[in-house]
């Protein structure tokens, strides 16, 4: 029972299991291994983005520009591929990471050097990056027939029976797990969120660390730029429009506190999975996809209520211990 109170990931895992169980009652094939694998693959991009956003939210900041960054980077990579099909895919992925990093670093520099609140900076860059996508593409689309077969091949490529896209997600999850739990940087990220003032006295450069998390979220957005385009084989200014709020929603459902310092890699992954299941399962059990938004909204509100109660309960437990002592 203690484990339930202690880890919200367990709650979320239980919620996801219940959700899959309910859907399976209506549609028996839903919980089949093949289908679950497909589900994980469909949610891969959201997971990677949620992990990048998680690093930012843990430091009490927010990055609203991720979807626009994804859109811009995706367009850059697609246009490069259309113009020079000879560029190998691994190099394109490196380019995507770098472009995303630069866009993230711009956010980070404004936060670091000018101390502008992150929500204002990223609200500005959200519109700027999407507008810049239009400028570099001239408003044109890059279609499937302009992309090289290798570029699109990612979605069909598989290794050990699991799609490459899922492998990339697994790799990113592993990297984030190492970063958050095994490095000084990860520890600083949590420390800043819990208590920025104490972090300064502990010798952490708070604003420089924030710069680094914006670089991290920018890189994840850049990577997803390539993944998104290769998966949906269309690059346009409309790519991932409004998706920034989905990413934040995945984090919130995953128990990552907007007040900073609370959250985990597992939470972000499960939060993204939860949203992925909702969007994927509705057509399967004959519910109109138009219900998706309202269900996600209710899930977010419910998650916030539960998380807030959890945070308060922790406080009470500390008091009880003090009384007992």
């Amino acid at each position: 029972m203690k484990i339930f109170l202690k880890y919200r990931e367990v709650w979320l895992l239980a919620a996801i299991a219940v959700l899959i169980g309910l859907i399976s009652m209506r549609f028996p094939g839903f919980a089949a291994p093949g289908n679950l694998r497909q589900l994980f693959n469909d949610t891969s991009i959201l997971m990677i983005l949620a992990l990048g956003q998680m690093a930012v939210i843990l430091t009490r900041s927010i990055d609203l520009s991720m979807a626009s960054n994804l859109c811009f980077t995706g367009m850059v990579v697609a246009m490069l591929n259309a113009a020079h099909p000879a560029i190998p895919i691994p190099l394109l992925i490196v380019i995507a990471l770098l472009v995303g990093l630069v866009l993230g670093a711009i956010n980070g520099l404004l936060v670091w050097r000018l101390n502008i609140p992150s929500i204002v900076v990223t609200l500005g860059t959200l519109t700027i990056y999407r507008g810049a996508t239009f400028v570099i593409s001239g408003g044109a689309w890059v279609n499937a027939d302009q992309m090289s077969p290798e570029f699109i091949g990612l979605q069909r490529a598989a290794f050990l029976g699991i799609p490459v896209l899922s492998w990339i997600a697994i790799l990113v999850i592993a990297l984030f797990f190492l970063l958050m739990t095994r490095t000084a940087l990860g520890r600083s990220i949590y420390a800043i969120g819990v208590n920025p003032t104490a972090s300064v006295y502990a010798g952490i450069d708070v604003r420089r660390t924030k710069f680094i998390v914006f670089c991290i979220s920018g890189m994840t957005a850049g990577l997803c730029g390539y993944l998104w385009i290769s998966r949906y084989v269309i690059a346009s200014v409309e790519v991932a429009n409004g998706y920034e709020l989905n990413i934040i929603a995945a984090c919130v459902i995953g128990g990552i506190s907007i007040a900073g310092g609370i959250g985990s890699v597992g939470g972000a992954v499960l939060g993204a999975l939860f949203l992925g299941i909702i969007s994927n399962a509705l057509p399967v059990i004959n519910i109109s996809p138009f219900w998706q938004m309202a269900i996600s909204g209710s899930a977010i509100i419910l998650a916030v209520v539960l998380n807030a109660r959890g945070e308060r309960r922790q406080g009470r437990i500390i008091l009880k211990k003090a009384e007992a002592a």
Partner: protein
Amino acid sequence: MTDTPAPRHIPDRLDNPLSSAIFSWEALLVAVAVAIFAVNSFASPYFLDAWSLSDLTFNFTEKALIALAMALLIISGEIDLSVAAIIALASTIMGMAVQAGAGTPVLVAIGILVGLGCGAFNGLLVTRLGLPSIVVTIGTMSLFRGIAFIVLGDRAYKGYPSSFAFFGQGYVWWVVSFELALFLVAAVIYWFLLHQTSFGRRIFAIGNNPVAAQFSGVRVGRIKFILFCLTGLMAGIASVLITSRLGSTRPSIAQGYELEVITMVVLGGVSILGGAGSILGVVLAAFIMGLVTFGLGLLNVPGIVMSIFIGLLLIIVIALPILWRRVRRERFT
């Protein structure tokens, strides 16, 4: 040091009056507006025509109405991302009422009441349960717009009565549209509320230090609740105007408005961290955004490229005072 920078320098008469007048936020905004105005009137012969200036106001009045209430909410340290979804929900319910044969007065009442109800719902969640508003309103944003999608799907409501068209398309005097007149009246009311009443004083107090305000006898929860209701109410009024102007309801109506409204408020010099801001600044920011979009429109610049200018403007206008303070500090220390 932390993510709460020093409160913005609020000029008063004890400072050097000249420099504080030149470098006050509102003065900066006026300069920006005049510059854009001058560029536009040189760039296009059609710009200075009274009717085209009147058309310009349709670009921003609906968002600016919401921005007035949003400014108060953000000064108190909260935020509401669900305003565009409230517009969609109110518009959808108005559309249902039209199908049932409701007349114009009923439609207006529905728009206003639905807005108020949604705002109260946000306010209850935030103040009663003590939840962070940014997350709650992301949730209610999906919920409200989700209901609109459930009701409408990919259909649209049309067939609004002809008398209903006045709110979004009519003029009260020469080139002054009903929307513009309503915005100006609302701006005066909100200016009075924020800068001339003890209620407004309390909003600033809450934004600067909610705990201190609570201990000083300010009913923080109640005031925040009222501000959420006001924001919802303005979204409801905006919904009446937009629905009337477009003459139809789709669930995707007013998509992305919430970020434009918040941009307007922040551009107007309201601190996103709460505790500072003015209605005059927000009104100026609304006109600036309108001027930019309209002027670039005359030059055939596509809307998405205009958003680059708005984004740059937002960041530059926020960065300038910070840089200016830094330069001054280095000179005096």
